[in-house]
């Protein structure tokens, strides 16, 4: 099976004043359809940078990133936008819903950008909102929703265009434990039932344990890439 995302020898350096920060150091990774992978590691280990590079929001300093068969390196801003619009869904830590749009309109946003016909949009969005448990809340604005509900809308928005890959940056970080658990269940369901690929960053062990695959980063390099069983080992405690 062809990988959805492939990173080969990816590095990312930042200039921070006089100091060069090596956020990623020679990452070689592949994510395949159906993956439900957690990217974990301590703060500053390069989790967010890795997701940004995978999504084309950031360019690697060296190495190659391929998304759904397309090489991201050297793409123009517009080409990157198109790639993200059609192939990648995003879930952010801070929900990042557009405050002037209702839950329905937020979930519909990407579909409108893709010029999907109105009837098809409506059918999809209503189904998705029901699926994430927000039936009857379509006309609420983000300020009228709880954090968990907002993150559900964000998930509905990410799933709306049935992207090849959903990238989620610490999706449960701002949620209480029970809401976080509900949200993970929802993501698992979508992964199992729809075969949707999820790659999410976290430093919550409970979240890591629910992943099928765990990529542990340390100082910008992959320290471990296997099942989350490693978390049960004595060195992880």
């Amino acid at each position: 099976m062809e990988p959805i995302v492939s990173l080969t020898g990816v590095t990312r350096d930042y200039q921070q004043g006089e100091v060069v920060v090596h956020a990623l150091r020679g990452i070689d990774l592949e994510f395949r359809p159906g993956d439900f992978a957690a990217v974990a590691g301590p703060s500053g280990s390069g989790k967010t940078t890795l997701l940004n590079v995978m999504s084309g929001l950031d360019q690697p300093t060296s190495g190659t990133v391929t998304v759904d068969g397309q090489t991201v390196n050297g793409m123009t801003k517009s080409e990157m936008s198109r790639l993200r619009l059609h192939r990648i869904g995003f879930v952010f830590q801070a929900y990042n819903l557009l405050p002037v749009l209702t839950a329905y309109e937020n979930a519909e946003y990407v579909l409108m950008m893709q010029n999907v016909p109105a009837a098809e949009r409506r059918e999809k969005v209503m189904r998705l909102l029901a699926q994430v448990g927000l039936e009857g809340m379509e006309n609420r604005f983000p300020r009228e929703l709880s954090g968990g509900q907002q993150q559900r809308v964000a998930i509905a928005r990410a799933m709306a265009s049935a992207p090849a890959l959903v990238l989620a940056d610490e999706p449960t970080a701002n949620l209480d434990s029970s809401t976080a658990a509900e949200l993970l269940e929802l993501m698992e369901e979508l992964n199992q039932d729809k075969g949707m690929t999820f790659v999410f960053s976290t430093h919550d062990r409970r979240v890591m344990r629910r992943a099928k695959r765990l990529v542990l980063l340390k100082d910008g390099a992959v320290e471990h890439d296997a099942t989350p069983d490693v978390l049960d080992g004595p060195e992880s405690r």
Partner: protein
Amino acid sequence: MKQLVRLAWRSIWRNRRRTLLTVGSMAAALALAVYFLAIAEGMYGRLLYQVLRMQAGHLTVENAQHLDAPSIDLRLSGVPTLRARLQDLPDVAITKELIVGPGVANSGDGAVGVAIAGVEPSVEASLSPLIHRLVAGSYLEDGDERAVIVGAELSRRLDLEVGNKLVLSSNDVDGQLVQQMVRIKGIFKTGSLDLDGHYVQIPIGFARTLFSMRPDEATQIGLLLHDPDQLSTVQRQVAGMIASNQRVAVWPWQKIMPELSSFMKVDKGSNYVLQVIILLMAMFTIFNTILMSALERKREFAVMLALGTSPTRVKLQLLVESVILGVLGCGLGVLLGSGMALATDGISLESIMGGGFDVAGFLVDPLLLAKLTPRITVGLGGAMVVIVALMSLVPMGRISRINVTDAFR
């Protein structure tokens, strides 16, 4: 597009007070500009209306050399025939014959140089503003002999009253010195020193006697048009009509009264510049608001870009927001300004300014008049919308340089 407009519309109303202040400032500045320009336009219109009725009109037919070297001997002949043909032109409302020449008014108390205008009393009765400015006596009538109306200033300087005698001296068409005694029939007061002190009117028949002209002669034929905008068309028609006679020419009022035309152009131009400067000062505040409103939403724009919205579309949203603000502010401003102009149109300022005032030597009624033209309403309003829209270029540039990953930090 629908989503773009929806996003833009809701975005501008997320801070209702700021938007209302922005729209309000824009509207207030434009309303004042529209109002003052309409009042100025009304004043020019009224000035022109009065001057053209007292002078020859929109177009003047006269001897081709008269304009460069005004002299009583440079006259037209065959006037009744030519006048009848001119009167038949569909855009011509009124024609009139005039004999205008220089002279001196003498009384026992002195002599004053004057412009002597021989007019048709029955035609002038329906046109000339002087009739409404009589402070003593009455206006001329057809068939009057040796009658004259003079300005209040002239009568004061020569110590004359209605019924008193006056001697008009001039040179006739043959260059001979001529003198005629006339009796004052009326005294007018316009507020214009030039008119009140140096202008007299006599019946055209008597003017022919004074200047030794034949009955079919005059110095000018004046044409007043139904629609002043047809001036060029009628000028071309008249030029075609008189083409066979090289000694006759037709001039628009701007050529006959260049000082008035220049005054109006300069005054109008400076008025526009002043209003536009004031508007631009107001727009600078609005620009600041638009810029701040965009920059405080950096993160939101970053989300849109992350979701795959093209940078062009994000910029387009800023443009649409500015256009909406511009249309609201300018639309309201034009409506308010027009309303104010219409509400004060025709208000008399006689109690403040007296009987009239002098603009570049011409008389203007002390009336607050407003004339709304498409140039003021659509032109100025449209230009301001474009300026407000152009203001979005700066925030567009700033937003297009957003680093999405930085914006999320």
